[in-house]
């Protein structure tokens, strides 16, 4: 092999990925940036509109509402997920009977299709005939408009999303818990520490990096909330479950406002990046 071919071979070897990257990642990103300055409904030629899409975005009450809805979802979903996952991980870290079975059982919803889970919960949440309301009625309590009451719809989706994803975070917390040296607890036992004291003074500080990782992962996952409102509520009632991604999708693929949809997407991506950067700063600070 001569010197020239030696230089070319590495490039040839990485070229499949480079080609893939250029076609499926770099080009779409650059194209969507170009789109933000245009009006385009796919079938007609693009029209240059300057900053119109950006100006529209600032005044778009639906987009602002969709961001607000997404933040409400995150505000409910993340703490709920952490508390439940941590509690379950703590329990499953003990020597309990059928530990292996429970670990598997809690992870099961994670691998079930999001669409299947959503349809299942839609049935459970049914206002007149859903199982949850039937139980409430049986207990002599009033019905809850899980998906039909604007103030309940997003919390209901957050509860479902927590049920679906909690297994993954249980595993992450379990890994975190197992890295805590046992002698710390033994020393605390000798000092007569209570269970809560051990949890708050030893466990929590030791698994802080895991908590932050869970927060970051759930934030990114939560920002991309789409399947659940798309299937369960279509963004209703009264736009109370209209998530940002669902709104971007509607603009793009219901109305074919490709330029505006790209603008929303770009803005939203920047927003997620900003939030994750802030979280990263916190993590670094903690370290």
């Amino acid at each position, binding site marked *: 092999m*001569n010197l*020239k*071919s030696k230089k*070319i071979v590495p490039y*040839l070897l990485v070229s499949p990925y480079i080609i893939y990257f250029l076609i499926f990642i770099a080009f779409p990103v650059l194209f969507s940036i170009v789109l933000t300055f245009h009006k385009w*409904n*796919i*079938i*007609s030629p693009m029209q240059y509109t300057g900053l119109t899409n950006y100006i529209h975005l600032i005044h778009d009450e639906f987009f602002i509402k969709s961001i607000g809805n997404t933040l409400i979802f995150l505000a409910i979903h993340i703490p709920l997920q952490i508390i439940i996952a941590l509690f379950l991980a703590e329990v499953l870290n003990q020597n309990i009977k059928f530990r292996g079975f429970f670990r598997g059982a809690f992870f099961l919803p994670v691998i079930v299709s999001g669409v299947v889970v959503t*349809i299942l919960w*839609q*049935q459970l949440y*049914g*206002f*007149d*005939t*859903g199982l949850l309301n039937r139980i409430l*009625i049986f207990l002599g309590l009033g*019905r809850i*408009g899980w*998906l*039909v009451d*604007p103030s309940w719809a997003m919390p209901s989706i957050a509860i479902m999303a927590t049920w679906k994803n909690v297994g993954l975070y249980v595993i992450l917390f379990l890994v975190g818990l197992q890295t805590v040296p046992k002698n710390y607890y033994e020393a605390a036992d000798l000092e007569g520490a209570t269970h809560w004291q051990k949890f708050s003074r030893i466990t929590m500080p030791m698994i802080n990096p895991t908590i932050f990782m869970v927060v970051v992962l759930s934030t990114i996952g939560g920002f991309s909330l789409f399947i659940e409102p798309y299937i369960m509520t*279509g*963004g*209703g*009632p*009264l*736009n109370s479950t209209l998530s940002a991604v669902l709104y971007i999708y509607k603009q793009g*693929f*219901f*109305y*074919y406002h490709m330029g505006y949809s790209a603008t929303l997407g770009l803005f939203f991506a920047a927003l997620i990046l900003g939030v994750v950067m802030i979280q990263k700063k916190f993590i670094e600070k903690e370290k």
Partner: protein
Amino acid sequence: MTKQWINIVVLIVFALSQITCSSKNERNPNHLIYWSSNNTQEIEFARYVVNEWNKNNPSRKISFQPVPEGQSSEEIILAAVVGKTTPDIYSNMWQGDVEDYARAGVLVALDTLKGFKDFIYSRCDSNVVKEVTSPDGHIYQIPWKINPIMLMYNKNIIKHLGLKHPPETYSQFDSASEKFKDENIDKYGYVDKWFGYSEVLVTWWQRFFDFYPLYLAASGGAPLIKDYKAAFDNKYAVEVFSFLRNLYAHNYFAKERLSVRQDIFLAGVIATRFTGPWEISHADKFKPKGFEFDFTHMPVPDNHRGPIYTYCDPKNIVIFKTCPNAQLAWDFIKYMINEKNDLKLLKLTNQIPRRKNLETDSLFTDYFKNNPKMIEFAKQARYVKGTDPYPNLTEVFDIISQEYEACVIYGKKSPQEAIDDAAKQVNLLYMK
């Protein structure tokens, strides 16, 4: 080594360009491609028509394939338009999409083809021709088939409620609903059966099954859009919103989505629904023993006079500009929708051909004798409307849907307020 690689790359690029060019340039003008809908019955119909045509016209061939599978046929057609891979003829185009495609310049203006005008006036009423004429004066679609939306009702329940006929006016509908509700309150005091149901969805097309047919019925087929302005800010739309709002407010219609489970109409959970003729074969196949159903027109305001219109979900035929021989395409379409083939379509698919005097034409008499439930649809076919020939109808229906939800389902706005707000937004949409 480098030279070898460059040679290989050049060869591949050359081969690809040859393949692409040949596929573009070598279209035989006497061999066209036709896409049909992809449901089983329509595939069978398309196959039959194409085979018959090819037998009689060996030198003017048509190849047929169902529209490729996708989330919706509309999405596939859009992708084909963008990729310039459209068929020459497409027979399942929703009327509301045609104006957008016409404006994009991808459809053939059919009125420029020889014999088109004579043919269309012999097939359709002048109202139908007017309905499919674009604001630019051209016609880009051939009205083909319709599925009128009507009130499907459970005959046993209507009889049980002591009614001589299904409810025809708003007040009859309300009083029947009240009676039915009184009989269906469970031991905990909650309603577990409803007189009617319309999917509680904000999605724009859901309004084809509630607001829009009711609006057409109340208004005698008035337009939704006229001269690029909202034409629905009138008493009829307000009356429809009031009627529907009352149904939800009194729990005559369920607010929860019931569509994910077994057929709620056949299970007796609801007594009526707004739907089309496609339900007949399904209901006949799966209905429990003794279950009887029928269809009637959409309910109208108590003081309504004159014919009762409805929405007909029209699917039309278009020729794309990529077609190398529009005259041949038109000749094939004329054959495909002649009387004999319309009867075939009716027999195979239970979808109504959009042609004049269907229920009185002797050619169709036997069919209606054997399918008595379809007579109601054939009679209704005289008084149906599709969509107005304006662009952005998806957004128009979405705006109405948003207001519908706020007013009808959740009672957050009065009907007048909701209609006014929807009209304002639609006017703004067309001003942009």
